[in-house]
């Protein structure tokens, strides 16, 4: 690796409906009601920022750059990331939502500009739940991916990553540069302090029109209809363990 270049981590983040909001499907089936609901940084992406900051604080990176792709008012989300401690922010201004492969193509352009040794993203956004963008970026970049990370250890040339998989915990080693996507237990993101919020206002935030860096997107998957999930009916209450056992036996479950 070229030693004259700063060792840079790029963190891609997304603004989503806050995880505490109980979402409501519009009665006409046209989507989820978003008017007036609280928007926040995707929780997995906050974990991604935190991990990048910790790597920098351990002296393994010189700079943390955060990026998002979205409409003009996403800048508040980037300011939040700057207040956490990132040095710079990039805002690719796109009014319409892009599909994961288009997002990955835009991120690849940012990677080519910024030359990071590590890109960290949340494993999925909690709105669309696609869980695609990080893996797609890794493929387009032709670099390794370490998804669903719960532990990251770096050397100068590689990352040893523990991944939360269905069978337990898997550890893989990937050469740098690489893409890492975060799982919930990787870390607990820091709280932002007021002075940091003030300081973040003066940190550099660059806006890049989508047209300058990528096309308008392919829009090959169109949502036709959005419905609430089928509900479950409340069942019966039993008064004691004997009755519980009898009910389970009756249904052939014990």
């Amino acid at each position: 690796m070229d030693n004259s270049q700063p060792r840079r981590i790029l963190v891609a983040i997304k603004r989503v409906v806050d995880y505490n909001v109980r979402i409501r499907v519009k009665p006409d089936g046209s989507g989820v009601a978003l008017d007036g609901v609280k928007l926040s940084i995707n929780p997995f992406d906050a974990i991604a920022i935190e991990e990048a900051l910790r790597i920098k604080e351990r002296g393994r990176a010189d700079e943390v750059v955060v990026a998002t792709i979205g409409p003009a008012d996403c800048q508040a989300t980037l300011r939040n990331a700057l207040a956490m401690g990132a040095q710079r922010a990039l805002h690719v201004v796109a009014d319409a939502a892009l599909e994961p492969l288009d997002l990955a193509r835009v991120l690849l352009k940012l990677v080519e500009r910024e030359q990071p040794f590590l890109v960290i993203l949340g494993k999925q956004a909690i709105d669309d739940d696609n869980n695609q963008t990080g893996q797609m970026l890794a493929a387009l970049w032709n670099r390794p991916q370490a998804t669903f990370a719960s532990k990251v250890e770096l050397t100068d040339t590689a990352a040893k990553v523990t991944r939360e998989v269905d069978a337990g915990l898997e550890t893989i080693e990937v050469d740098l540069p690489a893409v890492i996507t975060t799982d919930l237990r990787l870390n607990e993101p820091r709280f932002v302090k007021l002075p940091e919020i003030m300081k973040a206002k003066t940190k550099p935030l660059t806006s890049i029109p989508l047209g300058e860096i990528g096309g308008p997107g392919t829009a090959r998957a169109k949502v036709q209809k959005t419905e609430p999930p089928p509900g479950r009916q409340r069942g019966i209450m039993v008064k004691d363990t004997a009755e519980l056992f009898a009910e389970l036996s009756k249904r052939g479950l014990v």
Partner: protein
Amino acid sequence: MSKVLIVAEHAGDKLNVSTAKCVKAASTLAGSEITVAVFAAPGSKVAAQAAQIAGVARVIEVSNAVHEHALAAAIAPQLAELAAPFSHVFGPSTTFGKDLMPRVAAILGAPQVSDVMSIESATRFRRPIYAGNAITTVEVTAEKIVATIRIASFEAAGSGGSAAVEAASPAVALPTHTRFVALSAAGGDRPDLQSAGKVVSGGRALASSDAFKLIYSLADKLGAAVGASRAAVDAGYVPSDMQVGQTGKIIAPELYVAIGISGAIQHLTGIKDARTIVAINKDGEAPIFEVADIGIVGDLFTIVPELEKLIEASRK
């Protein structure tokens, strides 16, 4: 006609049930022709197992020592190469498929539909968003469609098939930038939480790691896997790979027993496709009772051992 390529998930010598579930999903596509691709180390019996799944027309076996452990970086370029003649490429929406399939889609330049719950046509799919709190119907316009199949939404295809197994070695360079180091398995001899027919879960009310012995003991009597709520995981009673819910595992067993679990939204999201939910909780107002088929209000430290004794007695 839809030509579907399904990537097999396996643990060395044993095919994961998620593969038969993907076959079932593919078979709901009118007039589909189903091929299963197996990436395994030499000597693996997985291809033969895949050939026995009902509805599979052909199995393509890529045998290479590299595939002793499944690595997306090694499988993706080969699966993309094999995908050329197919209209659809499916993988399970397990951590294996979630890791692999977007990498395949990006190599192919194809869109991916994640977590398919049902297939309406060759181009129309239903999938959950917002952790299952809304369901969308998506129409995809593309020559090739990549999808991950939500395994909780499909039963496994039966056995009795006898598909031909062909060897293949796709002409792509395999990357060396990703290396397997170790896997620490969860659960020991108990059934796998993700695919178990019965699951017993414990929550915060267990109040200690030690008290989870109650849960394990009942689970063993029932032949069930053991899960936990996020609260129990966060409290450090059990490891995180046991977590059931929106941010943990989303499961659909025949029987789900929630013990000392209040039923936070994010937990309910993970169990709402269970066939029968049983709730044991001392708080009669707990939200878990809103979704439980059978509920009992009381002290779990009394009820669970009593239930275990009754099960034991019934088998004598």
